C-alpha cells in the first residue's frame, strides 16, 4: 500500500508538472496572438464575406450599449434557434429516431448552451441526435465562448483607451475573429488528436452487436471528437454522452485526459498575457496570472489530497474513493480534472463529483463560488478576475484614504456600484434558488440524497447554473419542469446580467481620461497586490456562502 501511494503521488505531481510546463510554454505566444487578433485593423477575406452576408458593419466602434445590444441580439437569435432545433428534432435529419425535446427541456438546453453553461438534464445518447449535437449544441459551444472573449476584450479596451465616448470595440468583429482565428483552428487540431486517441468521429447511428459473452450491446456513433474539442476549449462542458468525459468514447486514455484538461485551461490562462499586452504593461498581466495560478494550485492540491486520502463511510468500505471514477484515470487525474473544470466555467466531468469525498465535493463547490476566476471561463474568467482586482483596489484605497485607481482609471462611485452589483448577482441567484428549492415541493423532489448531501446537491445545482459551469452533483433529478425552468433562469441571469455590468464598466473606463500615477497610487503588479486580490476573492466567498456550505459539505466532512 505504501509504495503504491508513493507511486500515485509521483504520478500526480509529474502529471501536474507536465500540464504547467505546457501551459507556461503556450500562454505567452497564444496571449500575444490573441492581443493581435483583437487589435489588428485588417479583416481577413473570409471575415469580410461573413460581414457582408450578415449585413453588419465590423468597423463601427460601438458604445458599450451598442456592443451589448448586438451581443443580446445574437444571443436571443441563438436561443430561439436552438429552442426550435430541440423542439423540432423529430422532423430533422440525423435524429437517430429521437423525438423533439419537451418545452421545458428545450428551453433549459437552449439557455444552457447559449450561456456557456452546458447544464445537462438529458442523456445525450438517449435524447439528442447527431444534427442537434453538431448544428445546435456545438455551434453554441463556439459562439458562446467567442461572446465571452469579446466581453473580456471590451473591458480590456476600456482600460487601454481614454476619452473615447464609451466606445469599447465592435461585437461582430470580436465574434467572428474569436471564432475563425482562435477557437476553430485550435479545436480542429485538438479534434484530430482526440480521434488519434480513440474518440469517435462518424455519422453512424447506434447499432446493436453481439458481445463476446453472447449478450448484446449497442456500438455508438456520432461526431464526438469535433464536439469534444470545442467543449473543452470553449470551457463549455456539455458532453456528447451522459457520462461526459468519463465516457471512453469522449476521453479514452490518460493522455487524452491530460489534453482535455490542457484545452480547458489554455485560453483562460493565456488571457492575462493578452490583457498585459493590450494595456501596455505586461506586469499587470503577470499579477493577474499570479492570483489565478495560486488559487488553481491550492485547489488542485486540496482536492487531490481529499480524493487520495478518501475519508467517508463509502470510500472506507471500498478501500479507496473509486466510486464514480474510471480505472484509467484513478484518483489523482480525476481530482485534477475536477479542479480544472470547476475553476473554469467548463463543467465537463471525468468522474462523478456527487461521489467525491465530502471535502472533495466541497472544494469543487467552492471553486465555482469563487466566481470561476482561477483561471475561469473563456473570457469570463478574465473579466471576473478584473472585477475582483478593482474591488481590491477600492478596498485598499478606503484603507489609506485615497481615491482608488486601477491602470490609470479612477474607481469612483459609478464604477464601484457596477462592481458591487456584479459581485452580488451570482450569490443572489444561488442562495435564493437554493433557499426556495429546499422549501417548495417540486424542489424537494429533486435531490437523490437526504440530509446534508441532499442540500449539497441542490446548492451545487444552483451554484453551477448561476456561475455558468454546468457540472452537477448528478444525483439530483433536474429534468423536471421546475428545475428546468428555475435553473434556466439562474443560467440566463447569471450570464447576461454580469455581462451587461462589465460592458457598462468598460464604457465608463473608456470614457475616462488617464489619471497619472502618484506616490500614493497602489501598485497593482506586486506580490503584495497578488496576495490582496486572492484574499479579497476568498473573503467575499466566505462572507457570502459560509452558512450554506456549513449546512452541506462541512457537516458531511465532520460526520
Amino acid at each position, binding site marked *: 500500500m505504501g509504495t503504491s501511494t508513493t507511486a500515485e503521488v509521483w*504520478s500526480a505531481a509529474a502529471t501536474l508538472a507536465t500540464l504547467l510546463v505546457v501551459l507556461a510554454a503556450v500562454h505567452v505566444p497564444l496571449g500575444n496572438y490573441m492581443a493581435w487578433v483583437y487589435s489588428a485593423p485588417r479583416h481577413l477575406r473570409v471575415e469580410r464575406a*461573413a460581414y457582408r*452576408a*450578415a*449585413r*453588419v458593419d465590423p468597423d463601427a466602434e460601438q458604445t458599450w450599449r451598442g456592443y451589448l*445590444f*448586438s451581443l443580446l*441580439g*445574437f444571443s*436571443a*437569435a*441563438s436561443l430561439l434557434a436552438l429552442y426550435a432545433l430541440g423542439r423540432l428534432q423529430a422532423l430533422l435529419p440525423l435524429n437517430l429516431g429521437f423525438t423533439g425535446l419537451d418545452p421545458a427541456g428545450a428551453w433549459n438546453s437552449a439557455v444552457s448552451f447559449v450561456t456557456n453553461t452546458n447544464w445537462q438534464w438529458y*442523456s445525450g*445518447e438517449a435524447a439528442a441526435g447527431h444534427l442537434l449535437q453538431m448544428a445546435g449544441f*456545438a455551434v453554441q459551444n463556439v*459562439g458562446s465562448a467567442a461572446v465571452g472573449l469579446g466581453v473580456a476584450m471590451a473591458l480590456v479596451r476600456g482600460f487601454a483607451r481614454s476619452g473615447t465616448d464609451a466606445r469599447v470595440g465592435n461585437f461582430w468583429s470580436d465574434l467572428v475573429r474569436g*471564432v475563425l482565428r482562435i477557437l*476553430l483552428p485550435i479545436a*480542429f487540431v485538438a479534434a*484530430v488528436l482526440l480521434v488519434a*486517441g*480513440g474518440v*469517435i468521429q*462518424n455519422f453512424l447511428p447506434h447499432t446493436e*452487436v*453481439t458481445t*463476446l*459473452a453472447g*449478450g448484446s*450491446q449497442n*456500438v*455508438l456513433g456520432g*461526431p464526438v471528437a*469535433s464536439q469534444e474539442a470545442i467543449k473543452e476549449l470553449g470551457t463549455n462542458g456539455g458532453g456528447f454522452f*451522459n*457520462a461526459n468525459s*468519463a*465516457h*471512453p468514447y469522449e476521453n479514452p486514455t*490518460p493522455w487524452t485526459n*491530460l489534453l482535455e484538461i490542457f484545452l480547458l485551461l489554455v485560453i483562460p490562462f493565456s488571457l492575462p498575457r493578452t490583457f498585459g499586452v493590450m494595456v501596455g504593461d505586461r506586469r499587470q498581466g503577470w499579477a493577474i496570472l499570479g492570483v489565478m495560478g495560486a488559487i488553481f494550485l491550492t485547489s488542485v492540491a486540496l482536492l487531490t489530497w481529499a480524493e487520495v486520502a478518501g*475519508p467517508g*463511510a*463509502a470510500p472506507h468500505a*471500498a478501500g479507496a474513493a*473509486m*466510486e464514480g471514477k*474510471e*480505472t*484509467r*484515470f*484513478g484518483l489523482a*487525474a480525476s481530482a485534477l480534472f475536477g479542479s480544472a473544470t470547476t475553476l473554469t466555467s467548463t463543467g465537463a466531468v471525468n468522474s*462523478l463529483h*456527487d*461521489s467525491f469525498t465530502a471535502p472533495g*465535493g466541497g472544494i469543487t463547490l467552492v471553486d465555482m463560488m469563487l466566481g470561476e476566476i482561477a483561471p475561469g471561463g473563456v473570457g469570463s474568467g478574465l473579466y471576473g478576475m478584473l472585477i475582483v482586482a478593482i474591488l481590491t483596489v477600492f478596498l485598499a484605497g478606503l484603507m489609506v484614504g485615497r481615491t482608488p485607481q486601477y491602470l490609470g482609471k479612477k474607481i469612483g462611485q459609478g464604477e464601484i456600484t457596477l462592481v458591487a452589483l456584479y459581485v452580488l448577482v451570482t450569490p443572489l441567484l444561488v442562495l435564493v434558488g437554493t433557499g426556495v428549492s429546499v422549501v417548495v415541493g417540486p424542489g424537494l423532489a429533486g435531490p*437523490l440524497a437526504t440530509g446534508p448531501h441532499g442540500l449539497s446537491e441542490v446548492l451545487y445545482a444552483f451554484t453551477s447554473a448561476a456561475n455558468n459551469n454546468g457540472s452537477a452533483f448528478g444525483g439530483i433529478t433536474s429534468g423536471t419542469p421546475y428545475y428546468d425552468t428555475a435553473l434556466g433562469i439562474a443560467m440566463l441571469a447569471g450570464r447576461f446580467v454580469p455581462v451587461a455590468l462589465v460592458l457598462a464598466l468598460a464604457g465608463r473606463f473608456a470614457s475616462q481620461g488617464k489619471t497619472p500615477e502618484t506616490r500614493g497610487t497602489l501598485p497593482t503588479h506586486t506580490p503584495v497586490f497578488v496576495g490582496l486580490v486572492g484574499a479579497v476573492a476568498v473573503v467575499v466567498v466566505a462572507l457570502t456562502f459560509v452558512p450554506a456550505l456549513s449546512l452541506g459539505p462541512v457537516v458531511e466532512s465532520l*460526520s
Partner: protein
Amino acid sequence: MSSSVQTAAVAQPPAGRALASLWRSSVAGLRMLVLLTVVLGIAYPLAVAGVARIAFPWQAAGSLVTADGDHTTSRSDAVGSVLIGQDFGVPDEGAQWFHGRPSVAGDGYDTLASAGSNLGPLSPDLVAAIDERRAAVAAADSVDPASVPADAVTASGSGLDPHVSPAYADEQVARVATARRLDPATVRRLVAQHLDGRTLGYLGEPRVNVLALNLALARLGA
C-alpha cells in the same frame, strides 16, 4: 441616469429606439448564426471526419474488434469496442470470463445509458452495495474479502469502464483457470501480457483491458 428626471413622454422614444435596435441586432444575429452554423455545425465536423477517416479510420469508427481480436471498422464483424467495457456476468456467473467493474449503466454496461451511481460518500445505500459486492466477489474468487480491491466493489463514472486494476485481474486468475481447465500460470501470463502501465511511465493508472484479455483467453480455447 439623468434621464430619470425627464417625464415619461420624453423617455418613451429612447426605450422605443432601444427595442428597435435590439430587434435589428437580433435579425443580424440570426443571419450571423446561420453562417456560423454552416461553418461550425456542418463544415467543421465533416472536415474532422474527413481527416479522421484517412488518418485514423479504426479509431474514428469506434476502435472495434472481431471475435479473433482483429481490428475492424465494420460493425457487422465486430463483437464490440476495446474502449467500451462489456458485461461478462458478475460475480457468481460467467466464471470462465474475467469480470469488469460493477456497472450501473442500465442493467450493466448498457451503452445507451452511460452513468454512474451518483451516490454520495456517506450514502448508506452505497456502503451496503459495496459490502454486498465485496462478499460476492470474495466468494466467487475464493479470496479473503479484505483483499478485494476497490475497483471491484465500486461502479465507474461511465458504467462502461473497459479496465480493471492489475490487482483485480490477478485475483480472478485462479477462478478463470479452474473454469477453463487451464494451467493458472498460462492465464497469469496472459494477464501480464495485457497489463497496460502508466502512459510514459506516469500518466494515469496501471490497468488491464478486460475485453482484450477475454478475447485472448477465448482464442486459447478450452
